[in-house]
């Protein structure tokens, strides 16, 4: 069965790849993912905060008490040469490129147009085949409009596009008031790919200590539906290739994603829970399913269930909402 696909201009034998996660910190795990047949490697994000604050904090803690007492000039040695997170990231990128034959997609995460964008170029120089730009932003300021948030997202994409010649995908959150329009604007701005969606880590509340606590819950298949809907909506309107991220755990999840238009299928929680071999299982499951259902190729299936082609588009739209609410009997 021909599962081949083209994502961000990269010709891939099939669409299954690990999504951005800390798994790429271990070279042996990266190799295991290659052995399991991953189509590409997506690195975890290098954060704007890491780029800016680590530099500031490292010097801050070395220097903050320097010259503060007559007895000593400094309190910590200052090495001539040291590596900050970004250097380590780029070094890891080089190591991954050296250890596996797969295309490597580096990831950059930020939401201001600052000096950090130059790292996109450094990623390209280090051998990245593409960049996944992750715009993880929580609009918490009451005086910031949706327009401003959207415009900034587009500006950042343009700035990164300008800095590099390799393809750039943008990973989005589902919280835009007009996702279809936003996708189109990003497409017009030159996005080579859209990744739907970011998972927002929702903090929890400790009611005893009255503290807000970070939580990390892995995804399950129930999170896929949100992605399927928006893939279906966006696919058919944009030139950019599409990737699904969040909620793919089985070959049927992957099939659904491709049917709604995905060119690439990213898996994270599944690999974390079951190990890299889940990539092989999903791929083999897809092959088998496509054969059983007599498809010629994956390409034939792609987008078959998007908004333009599915038999009843209203199911993705408002009518579905009305029907479900009214159909629920207590």
């Amino acid at each position, binding site marked *: 069965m021909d599962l081949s696909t083209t994502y961000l201009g990269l010709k891939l034998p099939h669409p299954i790849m690990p999504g951005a996660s800390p798994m790429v910190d271990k070279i042996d795990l990266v190799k295991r993912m290659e052995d399991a047949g991953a189509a590409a490697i997506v690195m975890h994000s290098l954060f704007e905060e890491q780029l800016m604050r680590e530099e500031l904090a490292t010097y801050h803690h070395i220097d*903050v008490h320097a010259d503060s007492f007559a007895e000593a000039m400094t*309190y910590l040695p200052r090495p001539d040469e040291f590596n900050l997170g970004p250097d380590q990231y780029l070094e890891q990128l080089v190591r991954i490129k050296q250890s596996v034959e797969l295309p490597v997609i580096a990831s950059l995460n930020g939401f201001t147009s600052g000096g950090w964008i130059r790292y996109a170029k450094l990623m390209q120089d280090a051998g990245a085949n593409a960049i996944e730009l992750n715009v993880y932003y929580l609009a918490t300021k009451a005086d910031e409009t949706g327009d401003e948030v959207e415009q900034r997202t587009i500006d950042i994409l343009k700035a990164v596009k300008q800095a590099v010649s390799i393809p750039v995908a943008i990973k989005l959150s589902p919280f835009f008031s007009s996702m279809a329009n936003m996708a189109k604007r990003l497409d017009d701005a030159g996005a080579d790919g859209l990744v739907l969606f970011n998972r927002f880590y929702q903090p929890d509340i400790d009611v005893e200590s009255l503290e807000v606590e970070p939580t990390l819950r892995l995804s399950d298949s129930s999170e896929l539906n949100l992605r399927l809907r928006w893939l279906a909506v966006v696919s058919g309107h944009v030139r950019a290739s599409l990737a699904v991220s969040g909620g793919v755990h089985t070959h049927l999840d992957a099939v659904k994603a491709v049917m709604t238009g995905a060119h690439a299928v990213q898996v994270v929680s599944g690999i974390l829970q079951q190990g890299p071999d889940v990539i092989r299982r999903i791929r083999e499951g897809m092959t088998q399913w496509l054969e059983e259902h007599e498809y010629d190729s994956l390409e034939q299936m792609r987008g078959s269930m998007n908004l333009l082609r599915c038999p009843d588009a209203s199911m993705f739209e408002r009518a579905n909402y009305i029907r479900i609410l009214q159909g629920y009997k207590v």
Partner: protein
Amino acid sequence: MIDASRSAKAGMGRRINTIMQTCFFAISGVLPREEAIAQIKKAIEKTYGKKGAELVRMNFEAVDQTLPTSTRSRSRPRRPHARAPPVVPAKAPDFVQHVTAMMLAGKGDVLPVSAFPIDGTWPTATTQWEKRNIAIEIPVWDEKLCIQCNKCAMVCPHAAIRAKVYEPALLATAPATYKSIDYRAPEFKGMKYTIQVAPEDCTGCNLCAVVCPAKDKGNPRHKALDMTPQVPLREAERENFKFFLDLPEPDRTKLKIDVKGSQFLQPLFEFSGACAGCGETPYIKLATQLFGDRMLIANATGCSSIYGGNLPTTPYTVNRDGRGPAWANSLFEDNAEFGLGMRLALDKQGEHAAELVKELGGLIGDELVSGILTADQGTEQGIAHQRERVVALKARLAGVDGLPARRLLDIADYLVKKSLWIIGGDGWAYDIGYGGLDHVLAMGRNVNILVLDTEVYSNTGGQASKSTPIGAVAKFAMAGKSSGKKDLAMMAIAYGNVYVAKIAFGAKDAQTVKAFQEAESYDGPSLILAYSHCIAHGYDLSLGLEQQKLAADSGYWPLFRWDPRRLAEGLPGLVLDSSAPKVDVGKFMANETRFRMLDKTNPERAKMLLDLERHEVATRWAIYENLARGADPIAAVAAAQTTPKAN
């Protein structure tokens, strides 16, 4: 005018040197302005180099923003009649007026030699006259929210926040903004309670606000202590603090001495020049609260000698009876012996006084003689009674002729039990003064040794000591120390007759208080190893208490007490006060620049040393656990023979 700290806040933390330097060159004219600015920028680039592109940019920005405004600061003060307040208030003692104040004003060179005390003894209780006003923010107390735990007073490195219980009637003359509330616990029913900040002595370190457990349920960001800008509060709180100080101290003999009770005792170590957030001074302060009115201190050179006895002011102070610690500093290499000498002198004076009491028995009276000679001074009450007897003794000796009586009058105070403390850092105790420390432990005399363990030579700028742990980067250990921290506790335990405690007030304050009491009451050598967070660890010290908790929880700094008295009762000598390691030690280490630095310069080695430290933690814990069970500690070491070797 330049608000340097505000300008620096955007990214540069509290460091205002770039801004102040620029002001200096812009105004002083020692160099042509353009040249000066070019040189400053060159220095910034050299300092932060290629890894600090963002810092270079921010510092450049600070320089450029400082320039246009700084020249205007030459304008004359708006209030031509405004005068600087006197260096010290008029009610300060004569010596402070004439000698200390001159030094505070930077005119020490003008003082003639004759102004100094002829025997080299300097008066204590003088930091109270030096109001530094260095805190940008100070804690404000919400009395209604407060749960009256006194933890804020416990952790304060500068005795700048205090607790008191007192009679309600005393509030009649309180200043308008003075706060108080009913005391909640049963032991002082009907009394009032106050937490009061010393606004001009607080350093703004935040520890009290961090440790405060009382959150407003409707708005948990608000606690019973909130840090608030100092300037608008200064005047009112100064009056409030003065009123607070004048309130009577509670009766020591009626207090239950735990964390809370200890903080009702007057600290006799206050407002030192230690760093904001210092991890050492809370221990010394606590010791002076518990024993300060009869304490002698032999202090090794190091941070504790600098903030403890540096000119011009002395943080050791006296209570209303004029009693307070007597303090002297010796050299790095002989402080333990110095302290032992003080012990021998105390013992000899006491012994001689007792002989004289017997000799003059007829004059003194049998009842008083036997009262004095057989006194139980194991409690605050016992000591108070002995003091009364000594007063009575002195009254009977007054006016009596003859050498024995006059001699006894001189040394009668030695009949009251003294508390001898030998204090220093790890550079002293583990390294340079170790031979002497070991000797003094072996002598079996009643000395109390407090090691303020920052795991590095702090005062001289962060050189490695034998207390420095595996994986820490320090001067002389740039590649990360590969050998383990010397286990001074085990070495002392090996003597069998030494009381040993390993404590961390941020991890378990109750154990800290208990260890001090046990060490002091033990009639033999006692060694307290006190975890002290330090600027040389490279993190924000307002998080020091959290780090101490992590240190204990990860097994990095296990808490325990070894008491030879327990052996005599047939119990294991060691009591563990922290639980088995439940957090990876790597989590503790990742929070501090001293460890993290290695990860940045040599990640492979950092990882190798982290594994070594993990092994070290596990082995040490196994040893202590065996000791606590009364089992053979060596068996634990043998069980852990797969030690990876450091390169």
